[in-house]
């Protein structure tokens, strides 16, 4: 990595099994330093697995990916675990972050409120991204905005498994922060 690079930190948040690890893996240029482990019987009692067939691993600490954008910019992606018992860790990860991407599964929309609240509390700019799963219901944007109580935050739709699509989430986030800045400068 170039010695002149400046790190930029972005968080990927969302409920359990929404695709945070997949997102980081898709976007990262390094093999993501993931800490996904097979779920134990004990975890199954705590983590709600309804409608989530095929999920037998979970992130136990965090996912971490890197994306070198230019000799002076390196993007770091941190996917933090979705379970509420990790909120303390998410709060410390949010320090010094540019913003966050909240992933949403349309089968469990309300599960993403938690992550949105954490980002709002920290006053970090964020973008809500619907990660489409095969067989998950599709809704119109207006309906989604309404049920997610979004005012001016952007809402994007992506497929965390595809690089081109996942990148859109990051572009929307940077665009959102830029717009916010311009408005602030204008008001000054």
């Amino acid at each position: 990595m170039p010695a002149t690079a400046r790190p930029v930190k972005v968080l990927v948040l969302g409920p359990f099994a929404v695709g945070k690890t997949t997102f980081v893996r898709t976007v990262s240029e390094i093999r993501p330093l993931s800490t996904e482990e097979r779920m134990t019987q004990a975890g199954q009692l705590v983590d709600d697995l309804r409608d989530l067939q095929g999920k037998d691993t979970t992130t136990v600490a965090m996912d971490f990916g890197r994306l070198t954008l230019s000799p002076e910019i390196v993007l770091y992606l941190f996917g933090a675990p979705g379970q509420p018992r990790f909120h303390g860790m998410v709060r410390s990860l949010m320090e010094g972050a540019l913003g966050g991407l909240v992933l949403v599964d349309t089968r469990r929309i309300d599960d993403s409120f938690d992550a949105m609240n954490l980002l709002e509390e920290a006053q970090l700019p964020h973008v809500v991204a619907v990660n489409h799963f095969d067989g998950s219901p599709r809704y119109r944007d207006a309906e989604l905005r309404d049920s997610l109580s979004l005012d001016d935050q952007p809402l994007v739709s992506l497929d965390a498994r595809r690089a081109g699509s996942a990148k859109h989430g990051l572009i929307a986030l940077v665009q959102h922060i830029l717009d916010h800045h311009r408005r602030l400068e204008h008001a000054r």
Partner: protein
Amino acid sequence: MTPSRHRRAGMIRSYTVSGGDASATRAGLDAATLLLADPARPLAGLAAHPRRVMDLCLPGALSVSEVAAHLELPGAIVKVIVAGLVDSGHLAPRAPFVPAASPYSTDFLMKVLKALEKL
């Protein structure tokens, strides 16, 4: 416990690794902070773990998280080791970009956006 796919760091207590220190001597070390090693600083006299951190950082900049992952140590412990190396001048930290803290943030954000669109 599930059997690990990784080799565990062994049965060494965290406070042994950190040389007995419980907290980092400097605040502001973030998981995304980049560490730049000074090749002119002598490595002789460093304990095993600080030495391994230097070995990881000398070929190029590396973030605190990556160092932690390579050493298979918790981030908080790595921060203690790194803080010591920063104090002795072995490592120079570069904090993550925060838009509110920089007067040139719009320019920088535009660069990030352009680079992302080009990918």
